[in-house]
């Protein structure tokens, strides 16, 4: 395939993926928005006013970056895992496998779809947060970079989950039992300075901590982790997961018989 033909193939998957989550916006865009508004009201307004300050900011201001990241993470992951598994389950993945499109284009198309939904939900949640607090932008470049890298990373994670999933139960196990706990323990609602030494050290093993803090740095200018180090950790995870995804596609594991 020529570079132009590869671009068309890639654009076809991206268009299909964006149309998919836009067509079912009641399932894909609305629920995370409602959930985040509830977080803003309950944790930010009702409980937050009693907590006072965290990291030198109002509690509401402190948790908003984490909640935005939480929605980006869950939606990037959720989009790819559900879309790719459905494609596999219905057999329509074969449409792509019989085509001359290289495997990396299939992966890139689905990842872009996941990033698009992550960004769409992230934008909606950010807009909604403005009804509850004022957001300063400390470093726009870091904000954009961290959101993009995080959504790419979790889209890759969703892809791996979908490849190994054999039932619809399998695509909800990781989000429920791994992703959600890691997100809650990733410094969304608190600074790790509040934790005893052991748990603060253990938290450093949680990759989500780096993303939440790097994003918080972009908005508030404060972080529990050095931003450069956080970006390095995210990059390493992206390279590792991308390589693994390509290995799965090239060997056909979970995809070809």
């Amino acid at each position: 395939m020529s570079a132009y033909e590869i671009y068309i193939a890639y654009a076809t998957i991206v268009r299909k993926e964006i149309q998919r989550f836009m067509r079912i916006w009641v399932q894909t865009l609305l629920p995370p928005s409602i959930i985040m508004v509830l977080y803003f009201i309950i944790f930010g307004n009702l409980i937050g006013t009693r907590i006072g300050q965290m990291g030198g900011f109002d509690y509401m201001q402190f948790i908003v970056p984490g909640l935005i990241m939480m929605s980006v993470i869950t939606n990037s992951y959720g989009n790819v895992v559900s879309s790719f598994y459905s494609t596999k389950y219905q057999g329509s993945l074969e449409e792509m496998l019989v085509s001359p499109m290289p495997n990396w284009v299939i992966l890139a198309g689905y990842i872009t779809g996941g990033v698009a939904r992550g960004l769409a939900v992230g934008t909606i949640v950010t807009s909604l947060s403005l009804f509850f607090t004022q957001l300063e932008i400390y470093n726009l470049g870091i904000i954009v970079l961290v959101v993009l890298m995080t959504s790419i990373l979790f889209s890759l994670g969703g892809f791996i989950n979908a490849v190994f999933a054999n039932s619809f139960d399998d695509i909800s196990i990781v989000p429920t039992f791994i992703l959600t706990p890691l997100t809650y323990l990733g410094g969304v609602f608190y600074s790790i300075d509040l934790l005893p030494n052991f748990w603060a050290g253990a938290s450093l093993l949680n990759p989500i901590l780096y993303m939440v803090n790097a994003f918080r740095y972009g908005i508030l200018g404060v972080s529990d982790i050095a931003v450069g180090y956080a970006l390095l950790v995210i990059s390493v995870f992206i390279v590792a997961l991308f390589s693994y995804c390509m290995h799965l596609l090239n060997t056909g594991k979970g995809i070809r018989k």
Partner: protein
Amino acid sequence: MTYALEISQLHKIYDNGFEALKGISLKVEQGDFFALLGPNGAGKSTTLGVVSSLVNKTSGSVKVFGHDLDIDVSQAKCMMGVVPQEFNFNMFEKVQDVVVQQAGYYGIPRVEALRRTEQLLRQLSLWDKRDDASRNLSGGMKRRLMIARALVHQPKLLILDEPTAGVDIELRRSMWAFLTRINEQGTTIILTTHYLEEAENLCRNIAIIDQGDIIKHSPMRELLKTINTETIVLDLKQALTQAPTIEGYRLLLVNNTHIEVTLHRGQDINSLFVALTAEGIQVTSMRNKTNRLEELFVNLVTNNKTDLKGVNA
């Protein structure tokens, strides 16, 4: 000579240890209408799965118009269109989108993809359904949608895995006419089917696969010549209580108005009618008991099973 499809020593052993293909070799000439027949589980779909890159082979080689799947998979895939046995499109997509997206996967620009899609959907009488969700189509329409999707990138080789399964006879005949037309226009077609009448009517060459081996590979005409006997059913005007005895023919009374006659290859049928007329028996119509190819197919597969039992004994 470059073949449309050239398979050499193809082996497939699944993870559970089942050997689905035992080193088969097969050649399909360009422009051919080729039938790959075999009983359920014989290895037909595995063979086509390997050719279309949906199944990983264990060993052997596959070339499509000279392009080796191990070396030049992209070119090989461009040459092929695949219509699988099971419906495998997104049931929530619109009919038109299913075809346009497939064109996109082959790198065809959207404007051209839309033009080709309209042309194919019109040819296959699906244009009126273009905005319907594909899940709402009837079984026959879904099969035609898969054919449109497989043809949108204008492949030189079309692979059809039981394309008329569960399709009513009228629609089946219209699909035969469509496939014959595109074959005449130069597209090589490989077909698997359980309707042996379909294979006999459409295909010029044939391979029969059983238990992972090719047990017959020859032109259809030559294969049919090997049939030694043929059974004909005669419908009688008057009822009989026993089969008449006519020298040189074996007649069996099926019921009081039907007689079965077994004819050997080359045996004429005129003297049979003369003898029946002399006996005062009037025949109102006649037909083959089974399709000729069906009879041959059953014999070959049964003999193969017997041979294998002998080997394993």
